[in-house]
């Protein structure tokens, strides 16, 4: 039984699967935000899945993808990567801006799975994954640093790469590449 069916079997009964896509062999599952920790526990502890290794955790800002002028183009592209029918949420009026992607790995079978959580702009809080995997510690801090997505229950949620009172979240798409002059602020205000 291939991975997709197994994942569906595992998560499907509990209504955890929002969407499932596949791109060049990489399976990704979108799950509801509130149940992300349960999903992870389930994926980790179900014997025939056994995703026991958190490879990485990252954030994506979909601002440019969601721009209205790109919308028709985006539809076709989404369709190219996977089955179009399984993308019900995207057709809504305003798709959530951020995504948090968890890259899981099963060491026994060498299978990888992407788990996606969509984060709305007005509710930027996701449950932390640190109780499940300690490896989520710094990546979550980095996602907070770079996108401003907060992780509820994280033991030490402060900025990781930028300095503590940096005013913006630089990996957001609306942040200019060359910055907003924060370093000047740092030099003169200290």
């Amino acid at each position: 039984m291939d991975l997709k069916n197994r994942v569906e079997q595992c998560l499907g009964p509990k209504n955890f699967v929002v969407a499932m896509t596949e791109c060049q062999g990489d399976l990704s599952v979108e799950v509801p935000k509130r149940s992300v920790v349960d999903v992870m526990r389930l994926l980790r502890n179900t014997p025939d899945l056994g995703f026991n290794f958190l490879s990485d955790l990252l954030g994506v800002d979909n601002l440019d993808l969601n721009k209205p002028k790109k919308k028709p183009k985006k539809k076709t592209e989404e369709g190219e990567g996977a089955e179009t029918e399984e993308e019900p949420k995207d057709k809504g009026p305003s798709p959530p801006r951020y995504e948090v992607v968890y890259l899981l790995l099963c060491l026994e079978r060498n299978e990888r799975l992407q788990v996606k959580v969509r984060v709305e702009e007005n509710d930027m809080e996701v449950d932390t994954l640190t109780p499940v995997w300690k490896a989520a510690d710094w990546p979550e801090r980095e996602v907070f640093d770079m996108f401003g997505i907060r992780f509820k229950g994280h033991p030490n949620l402060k900025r990781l790469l930028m300095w503590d009172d940096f005013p913006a979240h630089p990996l957001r798409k609306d942040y200019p590449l060359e910055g907003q002059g924060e370093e000047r602020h740092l030099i003169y205000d200290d």
Partner: protein
Amino acid sequence: MAKPVVKKEYTLSERIYLWEILKGMKLTWGHFWFNFKACWRPGPHTIPTCWQYPEDRTREISPVFRGEHMLQKDDKGRETCIACGMCAKICPAKCITIKKGKRKEGEEDKYAAKTYPAAFEVDLLRCIFCGFCEDACPKNAIVLGQNFELARYTKEECILDKRKLLMNYRKAKEEGKLKPPRKRVPVVPAPPKPEKDEKADEGAEAKKGKPAVAGKAKKKPAEKAESNEKEE
């Protein structure tokens, strides 16, 4: 969190420090003695592993080394650059600026093609010496030479204008350090029957539910690549 307990199991020779220490000292003595003898060799290059750099320039530099830029001329001494701007476009550091000029009557012995760079500037302070410009250049005009001594006193000196680039070429030519033309790596040959393949592709795409637009978009660049090869 409890750390795993590690058992130390030492052999006797490990347990009494001295035996292994003496072995190590024997080894270092071997190196010392070898190099001590090498010290007395004549010339600046004494110890085999070290080059006494400013005096000793015998170290061979790779012919494909990516050093300071130069603009090449062809056999007749004409500038080969056609100011197409490919190098400026591909440059990841955006360090190349080119101004295009049109060749006038009577300048055929100066410029090889109808267009030439009226201004060609390479900002060494930005350049990361990735060699993409060499790769992109259709005429093999811009080349990263063997000169690795890039230290300058002022910022202005670090901006190589066309004159300096041509001077670099002249210098390299005099020293016989011109870079051989870059070998294009062989590419996987095009599929034998493109029409049929295209159909098959389209069929496959249709089966997968891919819209035709994407298929076309995908096809176009490939054609471009083909035409490029023909040019070469």
